[in-house]
């Protein structure tokens, strides 16, 4: 049961990407790309990492 608690990690990508007011601005840019764009792109590998953690920790569990 405690291992299943790690599914709560999956709330982070929703919180991080679904409130545009927090990231809808230009700075700081990365390689000339405004924050709005690279911040959202950065959530893709971050989400993959979180999913990897959850998948590894809950191996064999049924949801």
């Amino acid at each position: 049961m405690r291992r299943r608690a790690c599914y709560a990690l999956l709330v982070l990508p929703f919180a991080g990407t679904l409130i545009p007011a927090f990231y809808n601005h230009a700075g700081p840019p990365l390689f000339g790309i405004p924050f709005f764009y690279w911040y959202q792109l950065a959530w893709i590998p971050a989400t993959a990492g979180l999913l990897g953690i959850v998948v590894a920790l809950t191996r064999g569990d049924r949801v």
Partner: protein
Amino acid sequence: MSSAAVVLGTIVAGVTVLGFLAARWGGANLGDLEQWALGGRSFGTIVSWFLLGGDLYTAYTFIAVPALVYGVGALGFFAVPYATIAYPVALVVLSRFWVLARERGYVTAADFVRDHYAHRPLEIAVALTGAVAAMPYIALQLVGMRAVFGRFSTLGAAHSLPALTVAFVLLAAYTYVSGLRAPALIAFVKDTLIYVAVIAAIVVIPARLGGWAHVFAVSSAALAARPRPSSIYLAPQQYFTYATMAFGSALSLFIYPHSITSVLAARSLQVVRRNAALLPVYSLLLGLLALLGYCGIAAGISAKDTNSVVPLLFARYFPDWFTGVADAAIVVGALVPAAIMSIGASNLFASNVFREFSPQRSPVETRVAKALTLAICAFALLFVFFVPVPYAIDFQLLGGALMLQIFPSFVLGLWTRRLDPNALLAGWACGIATSGAMAYAAGFTSNFPLHVFGVTLTGFIALYALAVNLIVAIGLTLARRVAR
């Protein structure tokens, strides 16, 4: 004949041969529905990664998203959060569904609905929703192919009918013969071409345009100067639209019949779960392609049809033969999902509409499913020629609004038996009606301005309709319980 046309023609011919050869893969009896439609449920992590990547990242990714960014700026970037949060949803929902499907022999989501509720009308409603929602999605693939073929036709996109028809007839033929093994094998070619083309584009094009900072500066000025001005940032009243489009699309992605088909072809639960963590690599491609929309603006590409922005960009910055490779990536990239969509939709008709689901499947069912793929391909071809939609993406978004209406019966049903099937059917009907009415009122675009408490909330129709659906389904379930 240009070398681009030769390269494109050769690659398309090559994948056609592969499509037919796929029938021999594994030496299976293709008269069996599980073999024809699900590849014998035998695919491991790597085959599934290519297949799902080839299936989920479609002309939507290569054509429609860059076109939307080119056309409306920041709002078009909603596809990136969408393609991110779809995977947490997938992990939770599909882990549950895959196990049940394996135990009980499901081929479609409607098989589950039939088995779970023993309610024939609800099974048919769920099956028809999937089959109908697949049509505009297949049509979107055709729009993508048309954008490529149109570049070769001196008369423009509208006159690429012969090439499009030939490509689609070939697609229908090898799908009929080989089933899911055809797109699974072709997906290896498709994904390789896509990675090569996108990485080349993202290295070469921004550098030739003077760097990203310049690309964004030019795009910002150009968007502001348009007849209908937009921006590289969201306006505050677009926040809600942006979030609802991303969230609604993410909820609907993995209940589409083509997603279900590819997921059920996986060999084990571990294959599905690993892929939930590995597939986001493709979402990075989607994000980079979205940025190519701005490269299109900065390069001064003036496209009468916004869908041709990406093909035109390749044609401008790459040698002719490599443009052919990129064109092939887009065309093959549209053929793979179109094949899986037609398989998924015909499974729904064969297993759930014409004949109710039972774990003992008959050879007749396979024959019906195979014949239906041909009909569905033909129908999608007609759809794209007779239904004009300004942005191809609205095809997919409106299909998504319909698709999401099976969420209560299918996804919630995976966890609860408390919802009454009649109430779910009523909720579904209200959801579909709401989608239709809002889409009509919004001129067949995907967002509806809802006026509540003196505020206007412009949001994705799919989520508004789902809200109505849930209120009706849960309300009627409670009402029936009180009455009893």
